[in-house]
C-alpha cells in the first residue's frame, strides 16, 4: 500500500476527511515549489497533487493554463517535476500524486516514468487526457513499481466507464464535480451527488471531488459526502497574485487552514 492508501486508512480510523491540494510544479520556478508545498502541508493539506506543466492543457481553465506557461518558461519538464518530488520527499511523508497530460509521459516512457517516480518517492499518477479504455499497459507499469493509478470520472461518464474507472483505479477515485474544465465556481453543481452514488455502487475506494472548489462552504458540503476534497485553481490563483510577495507561503498556509475548517463546519 502506498502513502495514499495509508493516509486514507488513518483518516477513516479518526473519522476525518482529506484535503487534497493541487499546484503546478515549477510555478513560478522549480526551486520555489518545495517551499510552497511545505506551506500547503503546514496549513493541513493531506495529499499534494504535483501538476506537470503542458503546452496544450485542454482540461484546464485559464488559471492553471497560465501557471503551466510560467512553469514551462522557467524550464520545468517532467524530469524537473520528479526531482522536485524527490526534494519534497526528503523532508515530508505527505502523499504525492503526479498530475499530468499523456504526451510528456509517452515521450518520457511509461516504464521509465514508473521507475523514476517511485524512486523519487512519488505515490501515484493521474493522467488527465488518457481514456480508461486504453489504460491497461499504463496501469500495469505503474502498479509494477508500487504506484497508485487514479482515474477521473465525470457526471457524463456512462455506467460502463465508471466500472472501468473502478477496475483500474487504486488509492482513490477522482470525481469531477461538473462538466467543463478546472476553475473556481460560486456554487457546486448538483450533478455530483448522483455521480457519487453511481461510483459508490462500483467501488469501495475513497472518493475525492474536485473542479470548482474554492471556499470552506464547498469543502463542508462535499466533506459530508466523500472522503476527500480537491482544491486547485484557487490555490494557483493565490500563487499567481503573489508571485513576488514574501508573504505568499504564509497566505497559502492560512488559506488551506481556512478551507480545511470547512470539514468541521455544521451546515
Amino acid at each position, binding site marked *: 500500500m502506498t502513502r495514499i492508501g495509508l493516509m486514507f486508512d488513518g483518516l477513516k480510523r479518526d473519522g476525518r476527511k482529506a484535503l487534497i491540494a493541487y499546484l503546478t510544479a515549477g510555478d513560478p520556478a522549480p526551486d520555489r515549489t518545495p517551499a510552497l508545498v511545505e506551506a500547503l502541508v503546514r496549513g493541513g493539506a493531506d495529499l499534494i497533487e504535483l501538476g506537470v506543466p503542458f503546452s*496544450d492543457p*485542454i482540461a484546464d481553465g485559464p488559471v492553471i493554463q497560465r501557471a503551466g506557461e510560467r512553469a514551462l518558461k522557467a524550464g520545468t519538464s517532467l524530469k524537473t517535476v520528479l526531482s522536485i518530488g524527490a526534494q519534497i520527499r526528503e523532508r515530508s511523508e505527505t502523499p504525492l500524486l503526479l498530475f499530468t497530460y499523456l504526451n510528456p509521459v509517452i515521450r518520457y516512457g511509461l516504464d521509465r516514468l514508473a521507475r523514476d517516480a517511485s524512486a523519487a518517492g512519488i505515490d501515484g499518477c493521474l493522467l488527465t487526457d488518457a481514456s480508461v479504455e486504453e489504460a491497461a499497459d499504463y496501469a500495469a507499469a505503474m502498479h509494477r513499481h508500487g504506484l497508485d493509478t487514479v482515474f477521473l470520472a465525470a457526471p457524463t461518464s456512462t455506467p460502463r466507464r465508471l466500472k472501468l474507472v473502478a477496475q483500474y483505479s487504486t488509492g482513490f477515485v477522482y470525481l469531477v464535480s461538473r462538466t467543463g474544465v478546472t476553475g473556481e465556481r460560486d456554487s457546486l453543481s448538483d450533478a455530483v451527488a448522483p455521480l457519487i452514488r453511481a461510483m459508490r455502487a462500483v467501488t469501495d475506494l475513497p472518493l475525492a471531488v474536485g473542479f470548482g472548489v474554492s471556499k470552506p462552504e464547498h469543502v463542508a458540503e462535499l466533506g459530508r459526502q466523500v472522503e476527500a476534497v480537491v482544491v486547485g485553481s484557487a490555490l494557483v490563483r493565490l500563487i499567481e497574485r503573489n508571485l513576488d510577495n514574501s508573504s505568499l507561503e504564509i497566505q497559502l498556509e492560512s488559506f488551506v487552514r481556512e478551507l480545511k475548517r470547512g470539514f468541521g463546519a455544521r451546515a
Partner: protein
Amino acid sequence: MAPIEELEKAYLAARDDPAFQSELGELLRAYAGRPTPLYFAKRLTESLGGARLWLKREDLLHTGAHKINNCLGQALVARRMGKRRIIAETGAGQHGVATATVCALLGFECVVYMGEEDMRRQRLNVFRMRLLGAKVVSVSSGSRTLKDAISEAMRDWVANVADTYYLLGSALGAHPYPMMVRDFQKVIGEEARRQILEGEGRLPDAIFACVGGGSNAIGIFHAFLPDTSVELIGIEAGGRGEAMGEHAARFRGGAPGVLQGACSYVLQDDDGQIALTHSVSAGLDYAMIGPEHAWLHDRGRTQYTTASDAEALEAARLLSRAEGIIPALESAHAVAEAVRRAPAAKGKVFLVNVSGRGDKDIDIYRENFQELDQP
C-alpha cells in the same frame, strides 16, 4: 468521453440513413456547387513539358474551399442531435467562414474560436464571419493560433455539451472526428476518380494534396486507396527552415504523440511539449498530422514531402499566370510539388487538388510580390 460516444452513435445513424444522405447530397449540389470540375491545365502542362496536369477545382465551391463539404455534413448531424449552438475553431478563417455560413443556412447560433494572432492576420475573414452572424472569440492563450483555438473550443464543448455541437474542421481530434471528416470529404476523390477516367480514360499516376490536419488530402486520396498504381502524395509545410519552430513537417521532424484527443505524428520537444510551428499558410500551420495519414504513411500507402514558403508562393504565381487560377496558399504547396516532378514525368498523368482559392491570401501575396504592388 461521453460526448464523443454520443456523437459517434449519432453520426453512424445519420450515415446509414438515406434521408440524411439525400438532404446532404442536395445541399452539396444546389448550395455548395458540387460536383466541382476536374480541369486539364493545358498551358501549365505545355510549359512544364512533362506530365499531364489535371486540377480538381475545390476552389470553386461556395465559401472558396473544400471546408464546406464537411461543415454541411456535420451541421446536419448537429441538427439530428437536437443541438442549437455550434462552435468551431479556425486558423486562417476558412473553416470559420464555412461554419458561420452553414449556421446561417440552418439557423444555428455560431461561436468561432480564433487565435488572437490569426485574427490580426486574417481580419477580412473575421469580418466575414461576423457578417454571417457568428460570434468570433479571440484566444490569447499559448501560441494564439489554431492549436490554441482548438483547445479553447474543446473547453467550451465539454462545459456546454448539452446544447452545443463542436464542428471540428479537419481530420483531427478524437474519434469519430477523423473518420467523420474523411467521410464528408471523400466526395472529392469519388468525383475525381470518375472524372479522370472520363478525361484520360485511365487512372492518374500520382495525386498531390496539401496536408495540414489533412482533410482535403484524405478526401481526395480515399477513393484511390485500393488503386495501388496511383501514388498518393501529401505535401506538408516546409516553412522557412529545418529547425524546430520554422516549419510544420510532422513526418520529418515529428514523433508519435498525443494531442487534443488524437494519437499521430506531432512536432514536439524532448520533454513532450508541443512545438511551435511556422508556415506562410495558416491552414498548414499545425503541430499534428491527422491520424489516418499517420496510419497510411506507416503502411507505405501514402508518401509525404514538403514545399517551402517560397516554393508555395512561386507556385501560386505560376498557376495564376499559366491558368488564371489564384490558389489558396495551402493548395499552392500541392501545386509546387506537382510542378517540381512534372518535367521528368513525360507520359504520366498528375492530379492536383486545388483545395481552395487565394482570395483570403491576397494580403500575403501582396506582401511577398511587392514589385506588383507599386502605384
